């Protein structure tokens, strides 16, 4: 059975990717999970320098979801290459490095450095973190900004370039289009939804950052819709994510148009979820007589609905 998928020049063994910010640097899970069985691992977002992130509280649980405002705490690209990448290489992980910049130059510099590092499969451009003021989201919320950062990175790296899009815009498909025009190999979406939760007893926000990003099953239907819209807007692959917690959830994204999917919050609940997702997808394909996962991508059947619209 064919689970392999193509993201630009990169072949993934299967369409299941660990989402950035939800799987540490991958090595944290090496004791529990065979990292090579994942289609890919999007590691925690990296700046050039180390970052401390926001003070606690950094997360709060909400109905069928969670808010986070970690603030991109991280070890910086140099320590990542020195301390984490060798083990990821040794464990045959397909490493997608998520990069964040305060400036366009920082993205370019990160892309240059990582292009020379051994064991990096692709770059995911974080232009969508809702939790930090400087950079990132300022690119992701402007079509020009998105185009500029993607094309600047495109010029300096042979690695597949995957901008990660924010859902906190009116028309996410136009950002997918801008990314495609700038030379992206794929787009990934959605990052978290900007959200807020307040403790009514103390009248204080639950998060030190006041606002945070909502993830988990609560956002899934919105994310599916956005993936569907982007799939129709661009020819490059769409990597879908947002509240996937089971094989059926992953299939929903794939049928909506995702070539691959990322899983984040569900990994917090079940670090052994990966084998269950792959088994579930394989069982579905067998049951439906599908030999190649690619045949499912974007296979949503809307004909009945269109007929209804015509007749009404």
């Amino acid at each position: 059975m064919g689970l392999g998928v193509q993201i630009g020049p990169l072949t993934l063994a299967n369409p299941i990717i660990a989402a950035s910010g939800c799987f540490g640097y991958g090595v944290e899970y090496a004791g529990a999970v065979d990292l090579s069985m994942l289609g890919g691992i999007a590691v925690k977002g990296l700046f050039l320098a180390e970052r401390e992130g926001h003070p606690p509280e950094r997360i709060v649980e909400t109905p069928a979801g969670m808010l986070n405002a970690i603030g991109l705490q991280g070890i910086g690209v140099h320590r990542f290459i020195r301390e984490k990448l060798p083990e990821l290489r040794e464990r045959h992980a397909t490493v997608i490095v998520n990069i964040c910049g305060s400036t366009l130059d920082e993205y370019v510099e990160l892309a240059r450095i990582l292009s020379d590092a051994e064991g990096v499969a692709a770059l995911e451009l974080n232009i969508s973190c809702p939790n930090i003021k400087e950079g990132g989201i300022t690119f992701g919320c402007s079509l020009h900004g998105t185009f500029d950062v993607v094309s600047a990175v495109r010029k300096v790296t042979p690695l597949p370039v995957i901008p990660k899009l924010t859902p906190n815009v009116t028309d996410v498909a136009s950002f997918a289009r801008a990314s495609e025009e700038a030379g992206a190999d794929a787009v990934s979406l959605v990052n978290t939804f900007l959200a807020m939760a307040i403790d009514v007893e103390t009248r204080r926000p639950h998060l030190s950052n006041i606002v945070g990003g909502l993830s988990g099953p609560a956002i899934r239907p919105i994310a599916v819709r956005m993936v569907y819209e982007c799939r129709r807007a661009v020819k490059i692959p769409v990597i879908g994510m947002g509240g996937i917690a089971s094989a059926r959830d992953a299939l929903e994204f794939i049928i909506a148009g995702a070539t691959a999917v990322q899983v984040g919050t569900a990994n917090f609940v079940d670090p052994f979820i990966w084998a269950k997702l792959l088994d579930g997808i394989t069982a579905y394909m067998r049951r439906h007589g599908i030999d190649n996962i690619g045949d499912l991508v974007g296979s949503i059947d809307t004909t009945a609905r269109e007929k209804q619209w015509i007749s009404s």
Partner: protein
Amino acid sequence: MLVDIEARVIRNTRLSADYNVIALEAPQIAEFTQPGQFVMVKSGRGGDPLLRRPFSVFEILRSEGRIEGLTLLSKRIGITTRILYDAVEGDVISCLGPLGRPFEPVDPPTEAWMVAGGVGLAPFATLAEALLARGTKTTLFYGARSGAELFYLDWFSSRGIRLVLATEDGSIGDRGRITVPLERELARAGSGSRPSTGSGRPEALEGRIPDPGSRPEVTLYACGPEAMLEAVAHVAAKFERPSQVSVERTMGCGMGGCYSCVMAVRTPDARQHYVRSCIAGPVFRGEDLVWD
């Protein structure tokens, strides 16, 4: 070895209107659990609650020499603890562990002084067993709101552990915080011989510190509300005693994936730095922590 067990509830003992001890059939976790380690518990199905919650392993259950499971000491404050309080025999609770950096039990002649506040008693049954197995003289300083919220006193005293108690209402032991009798006994025992970072020897005590040769070595272990942990770390530094404190922060995954449960620690160059309490802790050296 980390495992995720659908653990059957063997029994659930309600100790008060809020506290319970729930026994779970999870021998695969219990067998490898060291004192101070925790499990991530998922008590609901689906999205409510969505995330697991961390619990220190309270007791390792043995039956005829065989490890049967573990218990959790819980206080009802939120949705997961309410489900744990209401659980009945035969219910199934998902249990991921063992996780985290454990306590390091000291050997004789060093004494162990365990300091527990409220539900912070949780890691001290397994630590006490590890200390007793080494023949380490052990004291439990244990504080709660009232005498009715001091549990398992017989369990500890029957094993030869000295009890020092405090309650906020004064119904048992000292009235007030447990750090009051702790500080009194530390003063009586004098300062330690191990140098400590930060504070020097208190001037007022200079004259009546016993000779270093006769001074017992003491290591402090603490678990409880963060204000108590801070106070314990402070008096440990003041009396130059090493301390190991177990913190509880809002935790998303327990495995280092989410970066939510961070504690600020001092770096060698005197800056502070956030580390994940799930993998760098939950047990830290008291002198390493920077309090909010």
